[in-house]
């Protein structure tokens, strides 16, 4: 009998000894549908590097409560059906708790599945206003202001700089382009600005000569572009400047990468836009996390890189808070943990402490292109929409 007890005891002890490190080693998996090819590849490559780097920083520091983060990803070519395939593949082969999605279409398509699974917190490349609805999208969030909020930040800046200014919006005929138009009208009215004109262009159009004439006739003080990455913004800017227009041009997040704006050439000097994050080279204030990024990657890193980096930071922070509260990593717990983030320091990536009440972070700052210095320079303080 004693021998049996001894044997049971030994086996149990051995089992525990083996199991304990195994449990401690259990990784937290961050999955990603990443557009490394296709029309959004310029952003996907940066996003991928940003997530990779943040995961490396966390893992080098010992992980979260001894658990390492594992980043697994698939290329999606920015096609929603391929993104869903990637999601199925990754969630089928790993116990994924955190996820990065690549598009609004994917965020909307996968939402019922996220709710059904109830085990994943997701963020991604979409800043669609529709996603910023915690009731409808309870397991998702975005690492910045939604498109309506981005336009709101721009209008707030305009109203302060030139009260009663005439504003115009030029947007693409796409879900992305049309997203903030309603809010543009409402906010303009609320802030005492005059809507000079609204111009919609077909997606991918580059011949915008008739739209340029229309915009010139409306003579706005500020023209906001939304729903584009680059084309046809340079065409508008160059033609209007050549025609002597005094309007000031502005863009939203996906237009605002340094390399994108610099492609506008001399005509792009003074181009402004809303940025939720500091630029890689912005050393106007102390930013330890940016310092770390610069040490890891001495060459310029794009704004999508920072978006990926910050998204990974917030996803991991949600996981950390959930585990610290002794709760399992479920979608609901992770989201609750995310929403407990109050006055959080992002290490200077966002210049002010952030609080995440719903599905977005309604903070941004206006940057302006200085073509002589070949830099984007801040022209406003951080603007917070309440």
């Amino acid at each position, binding site marked *: 009998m004693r021998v049996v007890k001894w044997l049971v005891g030994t086996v149990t002890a051995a089992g525990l000894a083996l199991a304990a490190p195994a449990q401690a080693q259990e990784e937290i998996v961050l999955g990603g549908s990443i557009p490394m090819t296709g029309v959004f590849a310029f952003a996907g490559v940066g996003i991928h590097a940003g997530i990779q780097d943040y995961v490396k920083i966390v893992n080098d520091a010992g992980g979260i409560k001894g658990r390492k983060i594992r980043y697994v990803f698939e*290329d999606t070519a920015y096609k929603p059906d391929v993104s869903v395939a990637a999601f199925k593949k990754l969630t089928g082969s790993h116990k994924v708790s955190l996820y990065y999605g690549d598009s609004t279409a994917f965020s909307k398509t996968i939402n019922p599945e996220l709710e059904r699974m109830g085990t994943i917190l997701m963020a991604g490349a979409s800043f669609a206003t529709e996603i910023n609805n915690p009731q409808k999208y309870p397991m998702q969030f975005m690492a910045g202001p939604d498109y309506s909020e981005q336009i709101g930040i721009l209008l707030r800046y305009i109203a302060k700089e030139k009260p009663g200014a005439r504003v115009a919006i030029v947007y693409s005929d796409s879900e992305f382009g049309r997203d903030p138009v309603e809010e543009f009208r409402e906010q303009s009215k609320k802030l005492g600005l005059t809507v000079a004109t609204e111009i919609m262009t077909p997606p991918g159009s580059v011949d915008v000569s008739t739209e340029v004439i229309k915009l010139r006739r409306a003579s706005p003080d500020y023209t906001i572009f939304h729903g584009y990455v680059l084309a046809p913004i340079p065409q508008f800017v160059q033609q209007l400047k050549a025609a002597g227009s005094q309007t000031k041009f502005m863009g939203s997040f996906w237009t605002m990468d340094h390399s994108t704006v610099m492609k506008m050439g001399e005509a792009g000097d003074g181009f402004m836009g809303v940025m939720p994050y500091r630029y890689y080279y912005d050393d106007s204030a102390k930013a330890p996390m940016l310092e770390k990024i610069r040490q890891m990657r001495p060459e310029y890193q794009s704004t999508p890189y920072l978006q990926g980096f910050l998204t990974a930071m917030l996803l991991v922070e949600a996981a950390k808070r959930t585990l610290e509260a002794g709760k399992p990593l479920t979608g609901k717990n992770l989201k609750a943990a995310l929403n407990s983030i109050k006055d959080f320091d992002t290490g200077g990536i966002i210049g002010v402490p952030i609080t995440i009440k719903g599905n977005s972070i309604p903070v941004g700052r206006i940057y302006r292109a200085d073509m002589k210095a070949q830099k984007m320079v801040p022209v406003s303080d951080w603007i917070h929409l309440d």
Partner: protein
Amino acid sequence: MRIGTAKETYFADEALFDTRTQRVWLLVLAALLAVFPFVASQYWLYLACLVAINVIAATGLNILTGYTGLVSLGQAAFMGVGAYTVAVLERRWGTPFLLNLLAGGAVAMVVGMVFGVPSLRVKGLYLAIATIAASFILHFIFANWTAVTGGTAGLTVPPANVFGLPLDSEFRSYWMIVPIAVLMVLGAANLFRTRIGRAFIAIRDRDISAEVLGIPLLRYKLLSFGIASFYAGVAGGLWAYFFRSVTPESFPLIMSIFFLACIIVGGMGTILGSILGAAFMTLVPEALKLVFGWLPNAEAMAVHLAPVRTMVFGALIVGFLIFEPHGLAEMWRRVRRFFHLWPFRT
């Protein structure tokens, strides 16, 4: 032709599957399809459903382009019509999914026939350009008829229901999508044993001669558009149930080109070509991901390997077009002939 399959009746001569070997293999395939969901992972089930949806749409396009000789670049837009019809019916009235799918097919059929009218006057590239108009006009309607389509934000679709059981997972969706795909493919195969199907082929081979032979071009060309669009509508309806979200950007022009590529790679004017082409175009990019994943240091090299993979896929398509212009179906036939005649040379 298979050796030793002498036909004794006209019925036997017309049979879709004319040999015992063929029937046995089909039974094996049916058994495999039935067992597949019980052994496959969620990922493979997802891909199977996606292939089945693409097979339906490609089969429809093959009826129009491969069999009737009318080039269309509107197949994705007609899928959109089916998807929106299903989404609206399911959301507003919660009607049974089979009825919704039929309605989706029917509405797409009517719309397809309207856009098929130019086919009476123009052919080839000119018709392709005319059908592109369908893409643009329908996209505009999807994006702007907000009261019905939900505008640019689109519509979310509740899952299909069978006796109160929601088909909300890949496993459950498989049992809706794959049997419908099988039925639609069988329907298409049977179509070419009828006067209608043969009239389509006659129109493709020489439309003036077909008319001389007593085939009214107006009726049959529009019918071909109608049937192709019906297939697209049903595929779109299944797409809506499967992805549960329909937006104007869900069915872009590039998707129509994708279906055209499916039937060219698979084999124009063959039902098997639609199946093989849709499977090839859907699965090869995924298979390439798998193969590239086995390369040493693949994860670290992902940024560089991803575009290479896309290029390999493109090269494969070009390779097929050069070395096998009759498509995968012809390759399949050659392999089959080899086994039929073995040990003799083909």
